[in-house]
């Protein structure tokens, strides 16, 4: 027999689903559009040699990430890449402490055998070299090369794009 509590359970589940998927999906799309715009704005700023504007744009991107609900994996990829870019800019500006900070923040999102982790480890290694921390530099480069080896195997197995 279908009871009222059962109906309430079904209704509640449907409401929870509708609340969970709609706004979340829209938020994710909005944040990703922001990410695309931020990278383009950073590219344009770098093209006119305005490093500070490029830097500020990407700092804004990572700063707003927490407010948006999106797929964890996607957010991680976009954020790790943004952190890499910030570290890269800091290195270009010869600001090794900032490069170390950005790369470390990116790696805190969870290192894995992917492009983003390897990039951040490389940036961290360069920051460590600039700071005279040989042990950290060696460790970072080594870890990056281990990931890079796995990526190369995949890239060689893939048909040319």
């Amino acid at each position, binding site marked *: 027999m279908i*009871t*009222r*509590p*059962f*109906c*309430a*359970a*079904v*209704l*509640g*589940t449907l*409401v*929870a*689903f509708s609340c*969970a*998927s709609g706004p979340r*999906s829209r938020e*994710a*799309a909005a944040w*990703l*559009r922001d*990410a*695309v715009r931020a*990278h383009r704005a950073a*590219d344009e700023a770098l093209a006119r040699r305005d490093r500070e504007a490029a830097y500020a744009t990407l700092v804004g991107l990572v700063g707003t990430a927490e407010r948006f609900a*999106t*797929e*964890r*994996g*996607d*957010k991680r*990829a*976009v954020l790790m*890449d943004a952190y*890499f*870019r910030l570290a*890269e800019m800091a290195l*270009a500006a010869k600001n090794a402490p900032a490069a170390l900070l950005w790369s470390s923040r990116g790696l805190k999102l969870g290192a894995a055998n*992917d*492009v983003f982790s*390897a*990039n951040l*480890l*490389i940036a961290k*290694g*360069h920051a460590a*070299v600039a700071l005279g921390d040989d042990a950290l*530099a060696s460790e970072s*480069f080594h870890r*990056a*090369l281990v990931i*890079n080896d796995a*990526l*190369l195997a*995949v*890239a*060689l197995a*893939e048909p*040319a*794009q």
Partner: protein
Amino acid sequence: MNRSDDWNRPADDEERAAAERLAKALDGRAVESAGIEAELEVAALVRAAAMSAELTRERSDAVWARIAEGDAVAGAGPGAGVRAVVATRVRAPVARRRGVHRWLWGAAGAAATAAVVMLVTSVTTDRGTKLPPPNVSLVKAQAQAASRGAGISPLGREMRVYRERMLVAISATAEEPR
């Protein structure tokens, strides 16, 4: 207004004492000493008992059964009016509470079901978009950058190309209706 008519007010000391007497009576003790004579007092007593947290459905049924048998009120035997009062005022609050409980259980069940479904959904689908694999030139730039003395700029340039592809892939997934 008769105090027994206001069922939403808190029980006073007298009613609480009456409820205690009834509780003892229901436990099979001191039925005679309960001293319940007036219908009003019976109604007030029942009301106080109904308001007490201890009045479960079983207890309510026990109250009703004893009164119906005529032995719950020190042998005096409640009149028809009292029986009606007891029938509505013992059972109704319990029934209301049971109704509320049923809906609370329903709501709790809904929340729990939704939480479980969302958890399962997040575990199974929150891995993110399947990203395009890096091409050989990006991997080579990475390998070159991962050494002392090398520059990071070539890797940055290769990443610009890959970034475009990655963002397009992720955006396409995010725009898809779920």
